[in-house]
């Protein structure tokens, strides 16, 4: 369970408000009018089969993908306003990628300080202080001087989380953060995310980790073929889905060895 009141963070949490979001690649419409709200301090997990548009939706929130229609509000920013100061908005939105995307030419510490120094204009020592604090938060303070390629996948992903946290974001986006990890390192990353959720961070998480979603998420959103099929409290959507497509998906994910006659 997370709580949005007992936050240890000094940064104000921001919410997300998405209305009728549409996105096409050529003639292929991948988001067909998505509406979704994340209250400040809430954790929302996006689940669904691959190709359902959940990663695209996440990437639209900080405009790594340009939507074709609809509106997105992130805290005080309207992301879809053509005049929005994108760089200023993105400072407030931490993003964690499936493949970490750490900067391989920089040490772990420099990965966490470069944007603080270049974007927030913090001094080198201040940035290093913030970076070390956040590396401690993800349990990797002792690896600050290593380079990314000297770390395991799970360690790299935790550094990526620390890097995002070092910008003091009001919202964190996670794009399948554990999908590229060895099974044995998944737990460490999920533990860090669970802790963040408990500290009151607003989180929008694309994940296949149903256990994590059930335990940590305030709400779960099931997407398929570019639309929201079902959403609600984690317990309801995962343990007692009402829509046939949700049931089918969860059955496959939770019981992958189950063999069934395919009818369609």
């Amino acid at each position, binding site marked *: 369970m997370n709580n949005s009141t007992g936050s240890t963070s000094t940064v104000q949490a921001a919410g997300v408000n998405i209305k009728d979001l549409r996105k096409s690649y050529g003639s292929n419409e991948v988001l067909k009018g998505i509406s979704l709200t994340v209250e400040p301090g809430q954790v929302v997990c996006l689940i669904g089969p691959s190709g359902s548009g959940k990663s695209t939706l996440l990437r639209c929130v900080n405009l*790594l993908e340009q939507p074709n229609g609809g509106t997105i509000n992130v805290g005080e920013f309207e992301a879809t306003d053509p005049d929005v100061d994108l760089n200023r908005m993105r400072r407030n939105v931490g993003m964690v990628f499936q493949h970490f995307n750490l*900067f391989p030419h920089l040490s772990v510490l420099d990965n966490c300080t470069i944007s603080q120094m*270049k974007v927030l204009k913090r001094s080198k020592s201040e940035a290093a202080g913030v970076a070390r604090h956040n590396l401690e938060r993800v349990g990797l303070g002792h690896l600050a001087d290593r380079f990314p390629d000297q770390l395991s996948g799970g360690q790299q992903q935790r550094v990526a989380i620390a*890097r995002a946290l070092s910008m003091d974001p009001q919202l964190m986006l996670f794009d399948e953060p554990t999908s590229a990890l060895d099974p044995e390192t998944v737990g460490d990353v999920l533990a860090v995310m669970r802790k963040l959720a408990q500290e009151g961070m607003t989180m929008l998480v694309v994940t296949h980790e149903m256990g994590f979603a059930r335990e940590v998420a305030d709400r779960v959103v099931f997407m398929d073929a570019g639309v929201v099929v079902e959403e609600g409290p984690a317990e309801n959507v995962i343990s007692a889905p009402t829509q046939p497509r949700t049931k089918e998906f969860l059955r496959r994910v939770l019981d992958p060895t189950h063999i069934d006659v395919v009818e369609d």
Partner: protein
Amino acid sequence: MAMTARQRAKVSLYVQAGIFVVAVVAVILAVDWKTIGTSVFNFSKIGPMFPDIFLVGLKNTLIYTALAFVVGLSGGLLLALMKLSSFPLYRWLATGYIEFFRGVPALLVFIAFGYGVPLAFGVQWDVNIVVMVSLGMVASAYIAETLRAGLQAVPKGQMEAARSLGMPQWRAMISIVIPQAFKIVLPPLTNEIILLTKDSSLIYVLGLTASQYELTKFGRDGISSLGAGLTPLLVAGAFYLVITIPLSLLARKFESRSARTKR
């Protein structure tokens, strides 16, 4: 008696080595050593080339190459970024420039900037400027393509991660993408510098004063003044290796060092 595969491979290697030795011996026997000794390998008369081959020839070759490389690298980077721009006009301009200067002989570019441009605008250029502009412009066309490939080899996720941290496009380029691209292009870039070092010999068409001679011109001058046949040119040629071999070694050292810190 049948041979095993390993024995056959061994015999084949011996045969190849034998053919090589025979070929070398044949060439050595065919050479007219007496004539060659007086007109190409006549080292007894080249004393006067020293120490000026260092102080003038080698020095000027290094200066001309360095000047051209600075222009070539900055111009090449600009062209590479233009080629990757989302603005079509920039892409067309860069493509036109690159195709033109890659396709035209460097010698003609030297003549154009050494004689044509000064005549057209009524200016008198210092030889350093002519080398910088003409060789630099040719070099930037080649370097642009190398850098473009390097920039594109940096995974897209790097730019996305940098932008997600609030960096503007130019800042992400300078701090994240370009440093990684440079590690990728270091070997081909070394190649460009070596080509540039040798292309600097083309400035002989400009009519230099003695203090402006680079290695090749210095060697050609020795042919007419020393009476040792082609020997001075041979000596000058060897000095190019003095530049290019350490350059290769340096690049290799850089490469192995960055391989350690790169995924």
